[in-house]
C-alpha cells in the first residue's frame, strides 16, 4: 500500500512537471515579440486596420485558446483533490475491459474445447453407411460462438453521415461469415464419402490380404473403390442432412449475394454509374413494352385478316 502511494505521488509529480514545462513553453511562444505569423504580417501593407490584424491571427488565436483550455483541463485533473477520482475511474475502465475480455476468452476456450471434442468424435459419430448421424457440432459450435461473441459487435448501431455505408459493410462482413461457415459445412459433407470409401477399401484390402486373395490389378481395385464411393455418395446425397445443409448454404449464399450487391450499389451510386437495380427497372419497362407491342401486333394482324376476309 505504501509502495502504491509512493508510486502515485511520483507519477503525479512527474505529470505536474511535464504540464508546467508545457505551459511554460506555450506561454513563451505566446509572449514572443513576433508571433509565428507576425513576420509575414509585416511584409504586408502597413495600412492594415486593427480588424485586418485580427483576421490574420484568427487561426493562431483559436489554436492558442484550444491549447490553453487543454492545459487548464490537465492542471485541473492533476489537482490533488481530483486525483483519487481519476484513478478510481481509470480502474473502473480497466476492470470493465478485463471483465469483457475474460468473458470472451472463456467463451472462446469453450468453443475450442467443443471443437476439439467434436473433431475427435466426428468419425465415431458417422457410421459408414448412415449419414443421419453426422456430427454437425463443430460447425454449430462455431456459429454459436460467432452469434454470441462476434456478431453483436457488427450489430452495434451505426451513426453519423456514413451510417448507411457502415451498416452495409457490417452486414456484408456478417453475411459473408455466415455463408463461409455453411459452405465449409457443405464441403465437409462432400468430403465424407471419400473418407468413408477409403476406410471401407482399407478393410476390404486387409481382408483380401488375410485370405491371401489380394488382387495385383490396380484397375480392379480402382473399380471397386469407385463403386463404393458412388454408393457412399448416393447415401449422402439422398439424406435429409445433406438437403438441410444444402438449403442452408443456398440461403446464406443468397443473403451474402444480396448485401454484396447493395454494397456495390452504394459505390456505384457515388460514382454516378447505373446500378443493376437501376438497369433492372429499365429492363422491366422494356419487357413490359415488348409484351404489349407483341399483343397489339397480334390484334392488328387479326383485324387485318378479318378485314380481308
Amino acid at each position, binding site marked *: 500500500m505504501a509502495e502504491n502511494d509512493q508510486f502515485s505521488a511520483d507519477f503525479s509529480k512527474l505529470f505536474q512537471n511535464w504540464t508546467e514545462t508545457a505551459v511554460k513553453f506555450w506561454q513563451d511562444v505566446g509572449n514572443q515579440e513576433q508571433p509565428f505569423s507576425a513576420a509575414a504580417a509585416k511584409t504586408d501593407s502597413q495600412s492594415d486596420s486593427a480588424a485586418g490584424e485580427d483576421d490574420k491571427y484568427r487561426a493562431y488565436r483559436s489554436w492558442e485558446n484550444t491549447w490553453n483550455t487543454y492545459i487548464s483541463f490537465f492542471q485541473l485533473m492533476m489537482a490533488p483533490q481530483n486525483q483519487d477520482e481519476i484513478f478510481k475511474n481509470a480502474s473502473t475502465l480497466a476492470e470493465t475491459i478485463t471483465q469483457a475480455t475474460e468473458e470472451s476468452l472463456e467463451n472462446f476456450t469453450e468453443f475450442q474445447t467443443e471443437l476439439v471434442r467434436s473433431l475427435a468424435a466426428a468419425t465415431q459419430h458417422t457410421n459408414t453407411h448412415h449419414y443421419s448421424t453426422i456430427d454437425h457440432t463443430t460447425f454449430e459450435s462455431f456459429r454459436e460462438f460467432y452469434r454470441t461473441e462476434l456478431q453483436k459487435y457488427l450489430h452495434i448501431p451505426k451513426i453519423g453521415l456514413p451510417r448507411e455505408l457502415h451498416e452495409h459493410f457490417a452486414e456484408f462482413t456478417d453475411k459473408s461469415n455466415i455463408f463461409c461457415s455453411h459452405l465449409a459445412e457443405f464441403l465437409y459433407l462432400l468430403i465424407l464419402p471419400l473418407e468413408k470409401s477409403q476406410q471401407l477399401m482399407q478393410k476390404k484390402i486387409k481382408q483380401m490380404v488375410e485370405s491371401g486373395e489380394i488382387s495385383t490389378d490396380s484397375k480392379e481395385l480402382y473399380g471397386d473403390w469407385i463403386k463404393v464411393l458412388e454408393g457412399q455418395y448416393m447415401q449422402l446425397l439422398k439424406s435429409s442432412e445433406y438437403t438441410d445443409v*444444402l438449403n442452408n448454404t443456398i440461403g446464406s449464399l443468397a443473403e451474402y*449475394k444480396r448485401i454484396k450487391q447493395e454494397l456495390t450499389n452504394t459505390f456505384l451510386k457515388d460514382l454516378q454509374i447505373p446500378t443493376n437495380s437501376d438497369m433492372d427497372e429499365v429492363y422491366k419497362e422494356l419487357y413490359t413494352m415488348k*409484351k404489349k407491342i407483341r399483343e397489339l401486333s397480334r390484334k392488328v394482324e387479326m383485324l387485318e385478316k378479318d378485314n380481308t376476309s
Partner: protein
Amino acid sequence: MNQVKIPVDLILKSIDESRRDTSSRLKRASTVLTGELDTEIASTPHSVVYEEDRVKLKHYKPEKQRVKTPLLVIYALINRETMLDLQPKRSVIENLLDQGVEVYMIDWGYPTRKDQFVTIGDHVNGYIHNIVNFISDECGSQKINIMGICMGGVFSIIYSALHPERVRNLVTTVTPTNFDTDKGLLNIWMKNTDAEILGDVYANMPGDIMNLGFLLLNPARLMIDKYVSFFQNMDNKTFVENFIRMEKWIFDSPDVPAATFKQFITDCFKQNLLIQSKLQIDGERVDLKKITMPVINFYGKYDHLVPPESCDVFTSMIGSEDREDVCFDTGHIGIYVSSKCQREFAPRIAEWLGNRDN
C-alpha cells in the same frame, strides 16, 4: 499366428507394367493432344430462318422429304440443342434427315440480365407460338409436328394443351411431367430447398451453378471416374475427339431466365401442377385433356435426372386416344447419343410421324 503370404513380386511386377504402360501412353497422348483434333459440334448443314430477340430457328432440309409435315424440335433451356447434333454419325438430326423428316430446331441462345422477366408463358405463347406461325406460313399448313426434349418437352406439352389446333403430332422425350416422386435426386433437392431464390439473387439462374448441381448428382462418376477414363484413353484420337465434343456440350450452359426458373421450380417441382392440369400460363389453365393429337412419349429406364416415374404417368392423363410410351434401357443423354439408341430412336420417330402424316 499364421503368416499371410502377400505376392509382393506380382504386385511389384504389376506396378512396373503399369508404369511402363502409362509412360508410353503419355508419349502417344502428347502426339494426339498436340495434333489436329476434329471436335466440332453441330456441324450438320442448316440455315437460320427466323430470329426473335436472342432466339433463333435452325432449319434442316432432308435430301428427300418423306414426312410431309415438318417437325419442330423444342430443346430445354438448360444446356444447348447442339446435343442433338453432336457429331456426324452420332446425330439425331442427321438420322431424322436420313429418314426424310424436315426439321426445325429452336436455339434459345444465351439469356442475359434483360431476359430475367421472361416467363414460361413468354416462351410458350411468345417465342414458340411465333415460330409455329412462321413454320406454318412456310409450309402452308396450319398444323406442324412438335418434339420436346426435357424441359422443352414441358413447353411443348403446355403449347399443345393451349394451342391443340396447331399441333398435328406430339413427341415428348425424357420429359418430366409428374414431379410427385422421390425417385431422382433433383426431385428431392428441388422440393426440399429454396433453390428458386437463386433466380432472384443472380437475376438469371447461372448455368454454371446448375452444372455444378448436375455434377453433384453423381460426383464419383462425373467428377472422378470420367476423367480417369479420359486419362486412360487419351492416346486414342477418336476417344479424345468424342470426349472433347461431349465436354464442349456439357459445359456450354446458358443461364435460365429467373422468372422461368422460379415458375418451373414452384409450379412443377414443388406443387406438381402440370400433371394435375392445374398449371396456369398467362392466366389460362393447362388442361392436359385438351391434348387430343397423337402422342408418343420416350423416356430412359436409367435416367437419373428425369426418372421413369416422372414420365410414365403423362400419357394416361391426356385426352388423346392415340398415345404410346416407349422406354429405352438407357439414361437421360444416352437416349440421344448412345449407338444403340441412335439406331432405334430417330427411325422410330420418323416411322411414327409418317404413319400420322395426314
